[in-house]
């Protein structure tokens, strides 16, 4: 072997030469190439954001926020769609979160380790991948038609609740599984029942994770359009939802639907309205994402 030949040389140089130098040049260049590729998507988003701000900001004033939709672009506003969004989301959370946390608690704390649990797990993982438009069809067939709720706030909230359920169950399961077993053992050893242990120790420990997951799910539901159009929420609404039990059965519109409505109008004036609506929507969505990060960090530290 030629290892023997090199021994005659007195000293060696360790500078990169020849093929190694070439390979190292590529390797160093690859760092920047890959970084540029990583940032490209974000750069596109920033460019779109700036373009959108230029188009949308001139329309974004108090009138825009407080007016109902209109046939005339300059008079149209997002009052009913913001109220509709808030109303639907509030009921979505009320309907989805207790069920999601309950399911997660059962799966992590009470369920027997058998085929049933495996089935439930697989089922939830699959539901998380079902397209939102399919949830819309489900809502249309079951809530709107079968239960005769019509395209109402309640039907919308039920549809969105089913849509965000798998995602919130998954994040809640994760949060609960991260509570150290020693806490459970400590509580059980003091004679607490399983439910007392869960209620007093496990759930408080899992709270940051559950809350973070909930906020992210709300962000997702806040931007959902297709499922709500499926149930028939693409309508002209020029009134505030009523703050009563009966209000649950009112028809509604939401901010993303309003943006969609303006986007597909052929008249160019409406483009500015859509852009302004997007600014409001993005502020809400980014705000919710940021809030989720803050909540997780704050509560984790405590």
């Amino acid at each position: 072997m030629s290892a023997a030949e090199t021994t005659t040389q007195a000293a060696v140089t360790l500078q990169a030469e020849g093929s190694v130098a070439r390979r190292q040049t590529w390797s160093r260049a690859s760092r920047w190439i890959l970084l540029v590729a990583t940032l490209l998507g974000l750069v596109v988003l920033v460019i779109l954001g700036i373009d959108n701000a230029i188009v949308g900001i001139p329309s974004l004033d108090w009138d825009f926020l407080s007016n109902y939709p209109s046939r005339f672009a300059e008079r149209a506003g997002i009052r009913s769609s913001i109220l509709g969004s808030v109303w639907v989301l509030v009921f979505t959370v009320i309907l989805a979160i207790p069920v999601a946390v309950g399911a997660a608690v059962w799966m992590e704390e009470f369920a027997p380790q058998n085929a049933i649990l495996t089935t439930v797990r697989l089922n939830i993982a699959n539901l998380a991948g079902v397209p939102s438009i399919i949830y819309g069809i489900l809502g249309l067939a079951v809530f709107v038609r079968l239960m005769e709720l019509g395209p109402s706030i309640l039907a919308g909230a039920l549809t969105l609740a089913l849509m965000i359920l798998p995602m919130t169950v998954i994040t809640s399961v994760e949060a609960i599984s991260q509570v150290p077993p020693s806490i459970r053992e400590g509580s059980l050893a003091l004679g607490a029942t399983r439910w007392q242990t869960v209620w007093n120790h496990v759930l408080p420990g899992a709270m940051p994770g559950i809350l973070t997951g909930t906020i992210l799910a709300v962000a997702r539901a806040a931007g959902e359009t297709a499922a709500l159009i499926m149930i028939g929420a693409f309508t002209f609404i020029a009134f505030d939802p009523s703050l009563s039990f009966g209000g649950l059965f009112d028809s509604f519109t939401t901010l993303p639907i309003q943006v969609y409505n303006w986007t597909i109008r052929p008249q160019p004036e409406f483009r500015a309205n859509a852009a302004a609506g997007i600014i409001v929507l993005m502020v809400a969505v980014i705000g919710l994402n940021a809030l989720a990060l803050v909540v997780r960090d704050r509560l984790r530290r405590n």
Partner: protein
Amino acid sequence: MALAGPPDGSDLADALRKRPLRRPGENLIVVALVLCAAVSIATTFAIIYVLFSDAIGFFREISFWHFFNPGNEWQTLFDPRSFGVWELVLGTVNVTLWSMVIALPLGLAAAVYLSEYAHVQTRRFLKPLLELLAGVPTVVYAYFALTFISDDVLLPLLGGNVSFFNSLSASIMLGVMILPIIASVSEDAMASVPRDLREAAYGLGATRLEVAFRVVFPAAISGIMAAILLAIARVIGETMIVAVAAGSTPNLSLSPLESIQTMTGYMLQVALGDAARGTTDYTSLFAVGALLFLMTFVLNVAAQIIVRRFREAYE
């Protein structure tokens, strides 16, 4: 009977005996929790029932063969009406193809960068930022695809070669949307490749680039495959972007410059119109929906199986 002292003998045995009804409240709670978990199972059954019961109604009027025959058009608006779903499926394949052409190189590059090159702090900062791309409401991407990508960029650039509604503008935005899915899931797979393998390669005089692409990447390939399947499932099910920007003309074409219609695009179109219950238009919604559901179901299950195998290989 003794009144003082701890119970012993039969008293103790009695005190320790299991009494299923001692805490009825607690049992009720457990029942409630089981019901919560059952909601998810019920949802699945409801989806399957709703889709397939109306789809069966559809297939009573339109034959299976007619539906899946690649020679038939999708022409539901005027006579002679024709329900060849192949045109819609190809529309979906069209946007999937082009969005993957855009997202795959960028997403994998991002995964390699985050896993093999980036500092811990850089990764901690960059990854959530990248994941924000998946959190942008799709109606926002839809607006950008139509007004910015198509109207402001593609039309001036390509002129008459591209139609106003085109698959490319939708595909570009779909690509941006799924970029974080590919990047994030692939990065997880690469991060779980054992450190040993990297050290072995560095020890043999490999550069960072060679370690990344000749060792880590092949070792994580099944995780990367799963990421791609999940991303495809997401594209196939996405509605708003394609409904707004890709057009509404079923078209047997894989060209990115033409106007097409996807399965989801058709479904939204039916929902926006007012198809009367029981008509073929109405039931076709469920037939297309059932097909869409099956496609995403297969992709998701395949991705889960691959991920599970991959975990077993390295944990």
